[in-house]
């Protein structure tokens, strides 16, 4: 087939058929349905909160009633009223505060340590591609390994005190921070580096003035994930060996059938984690504003 300019083809009537098809498409076989743009109106905050509270109330109510009627075995599951009483006792006995503080302390220390060291390690990969390539498989190995499997060894090394909990919390946060910071390093704008080098910058200048600041948003983005991981590490550390802490409370409660206490400890843990989550979110938004992003 020889190439004919399409305009010429059209003039020759060659396009009649497809054009006709166009017309047809517009009319009979698929009538055009007139639709309006789907628009969802945002509910006011009060309505949202009301629904959320409502869901909670209904869930708790159902649980209590189900426990009353025996549909749920309160022996295994406990019941809201019993949990409420236990919660009171837990706070009155003064354990609540000391346990929470203990868990909070290991969490925060592990969080800070793991995030800082991990981020620094991840940033160090910028300095040499070969170094990064050599170290990478070891990191992947450590990442994909369930760190909790190392728990028995951690006690050996770090003892049964605060250090072991902090170590577990750090171990969990370290790798994630490393990988994220490394992803940040890989995403550093090549043209930015070129700009710096065109100005005659040294590698150290490029690192401090370009690489570190551009990785800050990446490191910030990991804070929220790390808070959960650090908490897990601290709690598991307490499972293994501890004199106090919420993890120990859960372990103890499990051993003596105090299911209500398990729930209470889990609840306090949730409140703790949400508090930290909110704090980190706030920090995050502050930091992000700080770098003008």
């Amino acid at each position, binding site marked *: 087939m020889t190439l004919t300019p399409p305009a010429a083809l059209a003039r020759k009537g060659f396009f009649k058929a497809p054009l006709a098809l166009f017309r047809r498409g517009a009319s009979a076989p698929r009538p055009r349905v007139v639709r309006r743009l789907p628009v969802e109106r945002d509910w006011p905050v009060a309505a949202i909160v009301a629904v959320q509270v409502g869901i909670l109330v209904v869930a708790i109510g159902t649980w209590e009633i189900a426990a009353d009627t025996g549909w749920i075995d309160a022996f295994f599951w406990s019941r809201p009223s019993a949990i409420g009483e236990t919660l009171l006792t837990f706070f009155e006995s003064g354990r609540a505060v000391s346990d929470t503080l203990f868990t909070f302390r290991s969490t925060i220390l592990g969080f800070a340590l793991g995030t800082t060291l991990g981020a620094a390690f991840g940033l160090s990969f910028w300095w040499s591609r070969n170094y990064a390539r050599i170290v990478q498989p070891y990191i992947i190995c450590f990442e994909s390994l369930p760190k909790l499997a190392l728990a028995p060894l951690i006690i050996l090394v770090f003892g*049964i005190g605060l250090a072991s909990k902090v170590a577990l919390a750090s171990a969990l946060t370290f790798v994630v921070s490393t990988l994220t910071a490394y992803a940040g390093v890989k995403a550093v704008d090549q043209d930015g580096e070129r700009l710096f080098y065109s100005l005659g910058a040294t590698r150290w200048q490029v690192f401090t003035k370009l690489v570190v600041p551009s990785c800050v948003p990446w490191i910030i983005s990991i804070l929220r994930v790390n808070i959960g991981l650090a908490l897990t590490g601290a709690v598991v550390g307490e499972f293994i*060996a501890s004199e106090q802490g919420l993890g120990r409370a859960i372990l103890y409660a499990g*051993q003596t059938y105090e299911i209500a206490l398990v729930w209470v400890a889990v609840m306090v843990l949730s409140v703790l984690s949400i508090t930290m989550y909110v704090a980190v979110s706030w920090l995050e938004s502050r930091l992000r504003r700080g770098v003008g992003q």
Partner: protein
Amino acid sequence: GTPLVVAEPVHSLGYLPLYVAIHKGFFAAEDLEVRVMTIDSGSGHTNAVLSGQAFAFIGGPEHNAFAKAKGGELRAVVNVVDRGNVYLVAAKDIVVKDGDYAAALKGKAIATGFFGGTPNSITRYLADKWKLKIGTDVTLVETANAAVLATVKTGKAAFGVTTEPFLTQGVAQGIWGEPIYNIPKELGPYAYSTLNVRASSIEKEPKQVEGFVRAVAKGLRFTYEHPDEAVEVARKEFPTMPAGDLKATLDRSFKDEIWSHDGTISAASWSTGKSVVMDAGILKQDVPYEAIIDMRFVPGRAAAK
């Protein structure tokens, strides 16, 4: 029929007669298939039985008492370990003069298991017996059983209340010497590890329970009668355990006669166990023998009756 699951809190040489009964086909002879499952989360092994997922669990009958307090009906049907299978050890340089344990322990720290576990309760029981107030006279370092070794080794505690195989390992490593207080010997019969089933199992499937108990009793007898073959079974169950540790542990167990000979749980046995947990404050109210122990299937007894 369907396999019966026996939940164990830890895979331990202490339960050797149970493994012997499995390996020697005593359950098979009763037309039962028994599988052992490790369940290590607090009351997990008890819950597994209560919720019907496991047929029996191996552990102290005090768990039946705890469950009873919350409305769960469990019965100990056969005894396995009839001695308080824990030992009080001391760091190498410590000597106890004239059996005055109170003086030796005063002002020191004792490493033991978690609160709620039997080693912990026995530690509290002993402290109480020797009139030592916990917190003021002695400090308890409560930790995972395996970590007692590390705690004593690192000098965080001068004494330890420990179980096999840690005892043997600690001796071999020179972390501590031979036990300074042999609890199996000193406390005598102690319903330490029994096999416990749901009360409803006894009512609904008495034949099954009977066969199960008979097989365990056979395992107990076989263990004492053929120690060499029992050791062979142990080796199969614990292939990676260093042979020396395995032998030393079993030697001590045979020497201290920790296992019940016929599976009976005596009244004395339970009263020791009970006073330990009540002293520790874990069991809040007295539970009578009959409420949690049912010996009707133990062969010797049945014959006696």
